[in-house]
């Protein structure tokens, strides 16, 4: 078979001079051979063996919607998907299953995945939604899910099964469909009524005039009785709870307008407003449909992200491990916890010894050693070898479960939006004035009074507020979304504009959250030999320090070693060239960082300093936030010297670096500060994220943080914070600008209506004109926003 040509599109980077391009993923790599990694090679072989080599032809020059990535070879087991209790979670009674598939990037991916029914038995049909990376499969009765998931993984993607929460989703879908139908119908009716209105404005009289008027009524009926129903419903709801909302005057204008117009039609008066009313309903429905669509999309992406973290427990029975979701564990069950996994329950170590990272509880990123008989907590991460855990408490009773439950209980108190507050007063004034003008004329000319009151209601109809506010929010949310900032609601955006203090978590937020070697100091011996000795000892340990050292010494060779052993919680030792070598902690009182040393027969050869690296953009972001008038502080569970050193690095006074805080203390701090913004990632921040005025969860955070945060950043870039604060403030400006514009229009129109100088034509021109102005104002936003959120061409 001829090798497929390397695609030469813009999206697929061509190899650097002298470099090679991987034959599967097309990315440049350093090394030899045809592939950048084993994963890519496996996928290439599988595709060609299954007669799917066409994949590469399709991909050549294909349109990529996401940059391609090498296959990450994480052989996951999916066997658990087919045990009856688990299967019920993922497969609907109709046999539908959904996967969130990581790694979809181009047309060829779409082609490949939609061929699944021909490749794997048991799939009836299959559909991929590329914008959400969502694969929906319809299974044949009784078909197994695990082989399908394994096959998708074999193709080089990472499938995450999504729990089938059918009811909620179906309901949303049905609602949106109905909203779209209403919108379409209102649009059609509006257009056709305008057709009738043109000859009327043009001066049609007599029999034809009456014909056009009657036809307007007929076409208007579906709008009044079906299209506008949502406004009646919310208005009634508001009135019942004795509140004022924007739908009250809208519904009132529609009802009164329809009645008056119909009355005028019967009495032969020329004042009918069916065209303006239909246009009003159509525009309002359109802006609300769009806002809802944007909100649903960001809600769905944060739901999909949560599926990344869906945990699995390996329950042991008769010596074999069965994978189950942690909710199905019972007290006394034995569970195997592998390296890198999160503990599914509180309990006691039964067999084996390991190191656990309790960063979510304490913020401390160095692991703690545990051995058989030790009590351990749910949510901590196993950073050492696999061990067996006996479940002591169910998830719901564990510390993690309790934090989760507390989060579920504390619903956010609703904050009344700014425009809502202002418009409430405005609306009351308009209503009082309308009633007033009607009463003033009621005794003498009731028809004239009704006309003027109605002109007032229509002309001052709070279009700018009702229409522009949702539109302004949805444009802002969509702008943020395209940059990878998932803002969960327009209300969150409004709260962003009020932020006065910003709190950062340390580990994983200001820093990268993983140790790297800062430097090696060779105290004695030959440096090259020392490096080799160090790598020799660290070659197989799973400890984060070992990983950092291996990364630092990559490419160095190892020496033969005898009796290499890891002493959990102490270090490593082994015999090389007949001498006893050790790597263990060598505390350095002069440094706040983690220090280990390489010792030969007890003599220190090399000192290694490791630290959690600061994100490069952190100091400039902190500076920008302070310039924007925000108070900035660090909240950390870590020890004081470490936190203080970090504060110096980002340019904060030591008084702003708060160390050794428990999750509860963190949330108390955040709660005490008014208009606070909390940025965090771990579960230990979840409470603080919820308590903050605005909670921002960083990329790589735990599912918990995602659930409670208002904003989720899909790339780990702190610069997003400055963007978001600007977006919040500028959006607020746009809202006020719209407000000013509509008030100006309303003052002119309102005075004219009260004075009775306005005719239907003028009202019909002023109303859409004011709407168009505020629409333009909302879409254009401000120059600052356009600059920061420039669309990638």
């Amino acid at each position, binding site marked *: 078979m001829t090798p497929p040509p390397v695609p030469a599109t813009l999206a697929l980077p061509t190899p650097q001079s002298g470099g090679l391009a991987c034959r599967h993923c097309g990315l440049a790599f350093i090394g030899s051979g045809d592939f950048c990694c084993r994963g890519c090679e496996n996928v290439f072989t599988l595709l060609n063996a299954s007669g799917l080599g*066409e994949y590469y032809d*399709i991909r050549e020059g*294909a*349109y990529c*919607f996401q940059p391609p990535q090498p296959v990450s070879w994480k052989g996951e087991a999916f066997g658990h998907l087919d045990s009856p209790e688990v299967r019920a979670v993922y497969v609907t009674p109709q046999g539908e299953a959904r996967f969130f598939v990581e790694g979809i990037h181009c*047309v060829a991916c*779409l*082609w490949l995945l*939609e061929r699944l029914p021909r490749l794997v038995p048991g799939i009836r049909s299959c*559909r*991929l*939604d*590329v*914008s959400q990376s969502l694969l929906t499969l319809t299974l044949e009765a009784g078909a197994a899910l695990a082989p399908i998931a394994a096959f998708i993984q074999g193709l080089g993607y990472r499938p995450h099964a999504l729990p089938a929460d059918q009811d909620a989703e179906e309901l949303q*879908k049905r609602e949106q*469909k109905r909203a*779209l*139908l209403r919108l*379409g*119908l209102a649009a*059609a009716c509006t*257009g*056709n009524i305008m*057709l009738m209105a043109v000859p009327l404005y043009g001066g049609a009289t007599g029999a*034809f005039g009456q*014909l056009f008027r009657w*036809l307007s009524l007929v*076409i208007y009926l579906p709008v009044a009785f079906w299209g506008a129903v949502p406004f009646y419903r919310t208005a009634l709801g508001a009135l019942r709870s004795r509140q004022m909302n924007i739908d009250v005057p809208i519904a009132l204008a529609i009802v009164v307008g329809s009645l008056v117009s119909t009355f005028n039609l019967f009495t032969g008066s020329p004042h009918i407003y069916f065209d303006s009313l239909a246009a009003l309903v159509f525009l309002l429905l359109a802006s609300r449909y769009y806002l809802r669509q944007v909100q649903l999309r960001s809600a769905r992406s944060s739901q999909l992200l949560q599926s990344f973290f869906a945990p699995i427990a390996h329950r042991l029975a008769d010596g074999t491990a069965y994978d189950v979701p942690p909710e199905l564990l019972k007290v006394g069950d034995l569970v195997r916890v592998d390296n890198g996994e999160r503990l599914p329950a509180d309990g006691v170590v039964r067999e084996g010894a390991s190191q656990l990272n309790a960063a979510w509880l304490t913020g401390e990123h160095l692991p703690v050693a545990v051995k058989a008989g030790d009590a351990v907590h749910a949510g901590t991460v196993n950073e050492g070898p696999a061990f067996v855990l006996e479940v002591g408490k169910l998830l719901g009773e564990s510390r993690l479960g309790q934090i989760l439950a507390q989060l579920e209980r504390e619903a956010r108190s609703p904050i009344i939006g700014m425009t809502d507050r202002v418009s409430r007063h405005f609306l009351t004034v308009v209503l009082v004035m309308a009633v007033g003008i009607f009463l003033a004329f009621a005794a003498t000319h009731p028809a004239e009074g009704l006309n003027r009151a109605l002109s007032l209601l229509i002309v001052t109809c709070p279009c700018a507020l009702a229409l522009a506010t949702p539109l302004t929010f949805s444009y802002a949310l969509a702008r943020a979304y395209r940059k990878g900032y998932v803002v969960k609601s327009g209300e969150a955006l409004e709260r962003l504009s009020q932020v006065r203090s910003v709190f950062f978590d340390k580990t994983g937020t200001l820093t990268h959250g993983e140790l790297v070697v800062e430097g090696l100091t060779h105290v004695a011996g030959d440096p090259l030999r020392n490096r080799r000795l160090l790598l020799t000892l660290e070659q197989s340990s799973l400890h984060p320090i070992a990983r950092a050292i291996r990364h630092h010494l990559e490419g160095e060779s190892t020496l033969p070693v005898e009796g290499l052993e890891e002493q959990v919680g102490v270090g490593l030792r082994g015999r090389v060239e007949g001498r006893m070598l050790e790597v263990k902690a060598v505390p350095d009182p002069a440094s706040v960082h983690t220090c280990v040393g390489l010792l030969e027969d007890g003599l220190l050869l090399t000192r290694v300093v490791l630290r959690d690296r600061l994100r490069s953009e952190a100091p400039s972001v902190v500076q920008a936030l302070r310039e924007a008038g925000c108070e900035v502080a660090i909240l950390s569970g870590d020890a004081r010297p470490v936190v203080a050193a970090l504060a110096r690095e980002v340019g904060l006074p030591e008084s702003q670096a708060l160390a050794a805080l428990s999750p509860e203390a963190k949330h108390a701090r955040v709660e005490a500060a008014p208009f606070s913004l909390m940025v965090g990632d771990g579960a230990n921040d979840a409470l603080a994220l919820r308590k903050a005025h605005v909670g921002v969860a960083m990329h790589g955070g735990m599912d918990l943080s995602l659930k409670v945060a208002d904003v989720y950043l899909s790339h780990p870039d702190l610069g997003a914070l400055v963007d978001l604060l600007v977006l919040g403030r500028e959006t607020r400006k746009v809202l006020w600008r719209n407000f000013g514009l509509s008030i100006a229009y309303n003052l002119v129109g309102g005075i004219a209506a009260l004075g009775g100088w306005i005719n239907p034509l003028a009202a019909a021109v002023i109303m859409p004109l004011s709407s168009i102005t505020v629409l333009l104002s909302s879409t254009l936003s401000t120059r600052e926003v356009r600059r920061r959120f420039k669309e990638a061409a």
Partner: protein
Amino acid sequence: MSVVLILLPLALLLALGFVLGFVWSVKKDQYEEGDTPAIRMLIDDSKPE
């Protein structure tokens, strides 16, 4: 002007036709998702094997 009496019902019938077409397309999930179909049509039919 009496031509209006023919044109008007015609125009309204036409409009009704489009509305029904729209209702049908919404019910058939044509607006469910707009991104993938735009890309799917770029894939050529498989070469004869």
